[in-house]
């Protein structure tokens, strides 16, 4: 069998050959395998772009034209927790610009076996959510005479989050040094200043500050929404913290993703970020009912991640990397580029398309690409 494949090694990507191997029917005659390989090789060659084909421009037009038809900027998740998701053109711009701070950071969390069937789903979801002391509070009262503050916590809510009063006291003591947090018999927390002459002012300030203390959950996850995706349950979150999330034991690490390119890049590297670009763009286009050949999007993602880190398609990103001065100047901020080129004595070899259009010379694309091998004397 391996002999049949050998002649195609190096002529086709290894992945295709493996795919063929895997998908061959169990009992397949040698002649048939040969035929299949031949047909696949032919199809592979047919799908290759020819030299001089402007794949980039065709890709840009293929994405740009349906892009003009996109409508509706946000879409709302049905349910109590209102999750507004940026989609449509704004999201597309966000991805392709390579924005560091995207409008709605989200994670899609896949769960391990027993949980993915819905076990403890609500509990798990609830515990992911970043929870501040505010949520557990029943009451905060200040005793002016004794310069004390008494915090009453809601038992039911504590129990839901699998917390006890003493643990809350510990967390608070850790984050607010200079105050003592004592658990009283009636399970309220007594807060006193540990300085020698406590001021009422300090306690007052603490009262507001203390409400925002992070108590439990995963930092950055502001909203959670368990939804049923096909056979299993997944959890969609607003706000991301993939690093922390992957530490949770009930999570399927292999499938859980974030929509933040740079978070993915930091955790898994550019290749993963490239795939996220493709997935996210496809997600936007699918939602709009727009069908674009994936290879156009792959090309864009390749261009964005080519340098080893994700760069946006703008004058700070991939356009900056263009070798031609005139090409850069014809995009944005021409004066900046020309002045800098003059200062450093840059040379433009006129190798690309746009410079030659400017000078009305033959563009090195399509029929303009081939040249003579021999020198004419």
């Amino acid at each position, binding site marked *: 069998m391996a002999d049949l494949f050998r002649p195609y090694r190096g002529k086709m990507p290894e992945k295709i050959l493996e795919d063929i191997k895997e998908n061959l029917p169990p009992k397949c005659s040698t002649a048939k395998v040969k035929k299949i390989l031949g047909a696949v090789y032919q199809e592979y060659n047919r799908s290759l772009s020819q030299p001089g*084909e*402007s794949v980039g421009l065709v890709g840009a037009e293929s994405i740009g034209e349906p892009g003009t038809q996109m409508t509706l900027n946000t879409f709302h998740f049905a349910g109590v927790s209102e999750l507004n998701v940026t989609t449509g053109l704004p999201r597309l711009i966000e991805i392709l610009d390579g924005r560091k701070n995207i409008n709605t950071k989200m994670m899609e969390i896949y769960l391990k076996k027993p949980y993915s069937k819905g076990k403890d789903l609500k509990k798990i979801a609830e515990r992911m959510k970043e929870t501040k002391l505010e949520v557990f509070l029943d009451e905060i009262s200040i005793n002016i005479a004794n310069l004390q503050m008494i915090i009453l916590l809601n038992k039911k809510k504590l129990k839901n989050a699998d917390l006890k009063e003493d643990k809350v006291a510990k967390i608070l003591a850790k984050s607010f040094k200079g105050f003592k947090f004592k658990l009283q018999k009636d399970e309220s927390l007594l807060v006193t200043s540990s300085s020698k002459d406590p001021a009422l002012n300090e306690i007052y300030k603490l009262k507001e500050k203390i409400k925002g203390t992070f108590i439990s959950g995963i930092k950055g996850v502001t909203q959670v929404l368990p939804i049923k995706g096909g056979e299993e349950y997944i959890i969609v979150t607003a706000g991301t913290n993939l690093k922390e999330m992957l530490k949770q034991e009930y999570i399927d690490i292999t499938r859980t993703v974030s929509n933040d390119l740079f978070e993915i890049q930091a955790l898994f590297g550019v290749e993963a970020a490239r795939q996220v670009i493709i997935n996210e763009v496809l997600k936007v286009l699918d939602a709009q009912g727009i069908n674009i050949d994936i290879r156009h999007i792959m090309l864009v993602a390749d261009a964005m991640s080519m340098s080893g880190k994700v760069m946006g398609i703008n004058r700070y990103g991939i356009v900056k990397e263009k070798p031609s001065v005139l090409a850069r100047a014809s995009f944005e901020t021409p004066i900046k580029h020309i002045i800098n080129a003059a200062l450093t004595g840059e*040379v433009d070899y006129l190798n690309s398309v746009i410079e030659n*259009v400017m000078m*009305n*010379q033959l563009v090195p*694309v399509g029929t*303009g*690409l081939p*040249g003579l091998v021999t020198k004419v004397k």
Partner: protein
Amino acid sequence: MTDVFLDNKFVGTVKNPEDFIERIISERRMGKLPITLNAHYNNNTDEVRIEICGGRSVRPLIVVNDGKSLLTEKHIQQLEKNEITWSDLVKQGVIDYLDSGEEENAFVAFTEEELIGEHTHLEVSPLGIVGLTTALVPFGNYNHGVRLSQGSKNQKQAIGFYIANFFNRMDMDVNLLHYPQYPVVDTLMHRTLDYDKHPSGQNIVVAVMSYQGYNMEDSIVLNKGSVDRGMGRSTYYRPAISEELRYSGGLIDEVSVPDKEVKGYRSEYDYRFLEDDGIIYPEAVVQEGDVIIGKTSPPRFLSSLDEYNLTTSSRRESSMALKHGERGVVDFVTLTENSEGNRLVQVRLRSQRTPEIGDKFTSRHGQKGVISILVPEEDIPFTASGIRPDIIFSPHGIPSRMTMAHMIELLAGKTGALSGRRVNGTIFDSENEDDLRKELLGMGFMENGTETMYNGITGERYKAKIYIGNMYYLKLKHMVANKIHSRARGPIQLLTRQPTEGRANEGGLRLGEMEKDTFIAHGTALLLKERFDSDKTIVPVCEECGLIAIYDDRRETSFCPICGEKAEVSNIEISYAFKLILDELKSLTVYPKMKLEGKY
């Protein structure tokens, strides 16, 4: 306590806002307060707002008390006898003018029949809820709202009889319809506006059918016979104005036939229509390039004149001539003075516009279309009684647009034309469609407005019955004659050497950035280069310094002004725009050095 605001300024508080408002309004109705004063109570914000400032639009409504209209039969009789007027009704408190605020507190009945106890006001007429032009759409209440507003927008562009003293006027861009008619299907608004004094359309016969595919996609087929008989014919008037300007030093423009010595003298042929006073004579048939008003101006710079210039001061030619593509007949010439006391010459040009392919027509329902063909009358389908339609309108324009009024007008127009009367199509208050159908049946026609028709070319009877009737059609002011434009070679801009822009300058049609991209995407590099050849130039470049050299035409050699005669100079072919950018870079003190290489 409720806050009270007068023209958005806080003025005090009241205990019972409803009673307070009621009192203000009753005082107003008694005439103690101005009629333009409006007051309303907003119970969401708990505020009373009284407005008397300008800038609010108000509209009249009949006051209703206990479910009874204050406008009684007696009032109407008095009005008919001219004993009282509208302003008397306002004074008596029968009519209120409500602004948008007070309207929020009002409960307005649409018709008198539906009045109940809670109503506070009654519409004067159901017509009052739409604007002027919208009220001109017959059976408007049967139309889709969008079409209604489109139809009323179209009416504003219609060519008609806009003013009676047009002959004495010098208006810009005037179109006059030759045989304007009052619509057979009219509305109350037409009568109120004296539409018969300035109509803007014609009653024509419309058949709803397709005609050999010539009326696809909103195009319409016109009967050539109808056009020859004067349908849709109009005249276009355009004035040319020239003024004898005064300059410093007592110099003045002079309207006269320019002397041959004048700078910029055209040619004798161009001035052939001018009479001795330098102005064209009426009824001259002129076309592009012909001078209408001959004029010369004093030389531009006075100072450097006398000493060296031996020739007598040469005046400049500044005549007014017809621009590219213009043609017509001189209609009228006026000589006047303007407010500064300068002599003013005005020449009005006229040209007749017979309907041609590309002219725009519309019914009153936003069903606009463009003429796609003028069919000889003998080829137009005809009915059993020999009627040939003036326009053949495509039925595909109906379902998606849902302009039911268009269909009803056709039927009503047919009934009206056959019985010799006007049909009332006022919005919400029109004649009953069923009655119109019965009337049509009574005159021996099909109740549904259709008729048996015969193919004009073969004479065969059509299997389908054709919906045919009369409609009021408008000719819109967009005509091909004013828009047609083409260019092969032509004028270029001085700075960039690229073709000029726009129809008036005989300009080119720009092949823009995105169009350029399509060439690249197709890989047609040579075609792209050829398309962008409009400003190509051959520039000598010094191979030593890489800057643009100079070509000496007398010696037929090129030399570099920097490196001297010895430096080698080669010619390159680039776009002039690129040469320009190199010059601009040089002016920015950036040195754009070109290194030349062999082409192969």
